[in-house]
């Protein structure tokens, strides 16, 4: 057996049935073995499509995504996608080819030091110089990607290691017994959390991506039922708690919902579950909720006290923590008595709904609302990055588990289309709705070819404002309306572009066509691209100016014509 065959056999044993990738010189042996295996390979049209595809697949399934690329440019084309997965903690195993061991360091053809390049953006990486190291490296890498806080792991394999023949030793992964000394035991921190919740008058739960990663959605629902504590969510936590009435108050942060941000700034105890207090949530972390007792639960100890002060840091998986906390609360007959606070929160919800004006031109929010209204069941909702992403976060009530896929940490334009493709492969037979922009869509548009080839049920809505909307908005608000290089003076005909790839294309240009065009798109069984021409001047509101506090929102309140600070 050669090294390549061993790798493929290893992946088969781990239950991998799908790999995204792009072949090339250094991985010919790997592809030779792959082509004779049971594993399905998705040939994307760019390596970036492959890594985002594996990312989308990993996020909707909770399984590890696998991605192959060749040496040099093949590997460097993955970098954005690896960084994206790292910041959003998606488990991905990346296998790249490398020039032969004897050629390393000689600036050989298609040589790049991908281990050196990716060091800051992977959970771990390896250069396998000896054939005999393959079993142990694969076993460890597979475990590292999934264990604890998930993340991307890269294995760089030289050409001669793929080709080398050996009797491979059995490798068994033994998790390192490296207890990081905790100042306080989990039991003790649970007791402190119970005490804090007992004292609390205005408690709030902040649900983040860690709730999704640990599969704690149901448990959180039970916890809420028992404690009546209101919930807000981060962008990555969207969908962890359903957003119908009585569910999550919505997203907090820079473009969060008013009631959610007001609740955040007004709470006295914040139970933060699997969040990392990004600057898009905290503004200036030094002034973040100075009077609030923060209980911060995260599986990664390095997240605790990294950005904000934390009274009760808890190193734990969210699921384990909630199980223990709930049973402790039940044990002592905990009765919620947060009446006045709940009334206040309800008043905020009623007083400050999200607001936008309709008119002759289509508004992005109208399109999102209409899709949400018409779509049946609980689709997987995928976004690209920019204004439309925030509108979806605000307006689309996501339902079901692992059904909201977005580039949260890195903010990668071009993520949407290939991630939607990966999501469709991960959840066959389910509807996938993609919202993207005319900017981001053009960054990875080539993956329409894969959509057409497999007839993936992806409904792609391009919120087309002929500009880079978020850039334009910031130029309007913070750079005296100086629109430097953010407006597209020329763009493709997206309908024809879709058709050129063999994908159905539709155009939505008038408010009157809204319901009909969206119905036509959603009823089509295969992939569809809908070019939605929207008002270029629409801004995402409310907005907390950079460095501001959660209650310092600017927006249009109760139909005011001008933007003002919430009062």
């Amino acid at each position, binding site marked *: 057996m050669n090294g390549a065959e061993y790798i493929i056999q290893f992946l088969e044993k781990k239950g991998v049935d799908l790999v995204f990738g792009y072949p090339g010189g250094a991985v010919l042996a790997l592809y030779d073995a792959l082509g004779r295996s049971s594993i399905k390979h998705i040939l994307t049209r760019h390596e970036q499509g492959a890594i985002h595809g594996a990312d989308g697949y990993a996020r909707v399934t909770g399984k590890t995504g696998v991605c192959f690329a060749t040496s040099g440019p093949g590997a460097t084309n993955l970098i954005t996608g690896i960084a994206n997965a790292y910041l959003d903690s998606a488990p991905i195993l990346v296998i790249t080819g490398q020039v032969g061991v004897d050629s390393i360091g000689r600036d050989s053809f298609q040589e790049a030091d991908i281990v*050196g390049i990716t*060091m800051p953006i992977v959970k*771990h990486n390896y250069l396998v110089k000896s054939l005999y190291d393959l079993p142990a490296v694969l076993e460890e890498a597979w475990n*590292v990607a999934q264990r604890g806080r998930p993340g991307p792991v890269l294995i760089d394999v030289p050409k001669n290691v793929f080709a080398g023949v050996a009797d491979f030793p059995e490798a068994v992964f033994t998790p390192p017994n*490296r207890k*990081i000394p905790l100042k306080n035991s989990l039991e003790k921190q649970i007791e402190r959390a119970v005490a804090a919740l007992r004292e609390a008058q205005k408690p709030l739960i902040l649900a983040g991506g860690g709730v999704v990663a640990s599969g704690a959605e149901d448990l959180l629902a039970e916890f809420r039922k028992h404690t009546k504590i209101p919930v807000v969510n981060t962008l990555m936590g969207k969908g962890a708690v359903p957003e119908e009435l009585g569910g999550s108050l919505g997203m907090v942060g820079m473009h969060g919902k008013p009631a959610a941000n007001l609740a955040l700034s007004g709470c006295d105890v914040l139970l933060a579950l699997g969040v990392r207090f990004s600057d898009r949530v905290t503004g200036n972390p030094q002034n973040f909720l100075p009077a609030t007792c923060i209980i911060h639960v995260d599986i*990664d100890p*390095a997240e605790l006290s990294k950005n904000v002060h934390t009274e009760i840091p808890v190193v734990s998986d969210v699921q384990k923590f909630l199980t223990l906390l709930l049973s402790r609360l039940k044990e002592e007959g905990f009765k919620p008595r947060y009446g006045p606070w709940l009334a206040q929160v309800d008043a905020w919800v009623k007083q400050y709904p999200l607001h936008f004006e309709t008119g002759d031109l289509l508004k992005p929010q109208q399109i999102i609302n209409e899709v949400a209204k018409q779509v049946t069941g609980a689709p997987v909702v995928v976004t690209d990055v920019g204004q439309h992403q925030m509108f979806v976060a605000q307006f689309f009530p996501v339902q079901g588990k692992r059904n909201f896929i977005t580039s949260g940490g890195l903010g990668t334009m071009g993520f949407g289309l290939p991630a939607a493709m990966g999501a469709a492969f991960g959840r066959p037979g389910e509807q996938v709705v993609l919202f993207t922009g005319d900017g981001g869509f053009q960054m990875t548009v080539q993956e329409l070819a894969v959509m057409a080839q497999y007839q993936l049920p992806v409904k792609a809505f391009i919120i087309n404002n002929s500009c880079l909307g978020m850039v334009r908005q910031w130029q309007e608000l913070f750079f005296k309306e100086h629109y430097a290089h953010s407006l597209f003076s020329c763009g493709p005909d997206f309908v024809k572009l879709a058709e050129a790839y063999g994908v159905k294309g539709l155009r939505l240009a008038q408010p009157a066509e809204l319901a009909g065009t969206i119905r036509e798109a959603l009823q089509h069984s295969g992939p569809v691209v809908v070019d939605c021409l929207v008002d270029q001047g629409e801004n995402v509101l409310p907005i907390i100016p950079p460095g501001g506090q959660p209650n310092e929102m600017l927006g249009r309140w109760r139909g005011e014509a001008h933007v003002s600070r919430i009062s």
Partner: protein
Amino acid sequence: MRHTLAVLVENRPGVLSHVAGLFARRGYNIESLVVGETEDKTVSRITLVVEGDERVIEQVSKQLNKQIEVIKVNDITNEQTVDRQMLLVKVTADQAARQEILQLMEIFRCRVVDIGRRSLIIEATGDEGKIEAVIQSLRPFGIKELVRTGKVSMVRGSK
């Protein structure tokens, strides 16, 4: 405040770049870094001197602990330790000055390891205070070249 961290790592290729890279990208300042094998050939020890307040050092330790090859991180700043650095210094030493330098070096228990026509190379080991004092005492004679290692530390007693 300055902290001394003793970090045990697996002796594998790439470990040093993983650790050094971590400091660069998280914006921590390394004052000195010494790495070498330990009594166990599969384990290396990195002795790091880092500047930062408690919050920064806590983050540094946590981030180090996340590295796959890191076995153990010990903050030995407040321990009783034996600290050593090593210094090689080439000092201008004509016939007139030579005797004076040699006497000075006697006081510091330094060794002369090379003699040229107009210069000496002196080797010194000791804690940071001693090394600084040696450098100060030699400065008036004219230092032509100076090289020093970072600090290695060991906790006293049977720990």
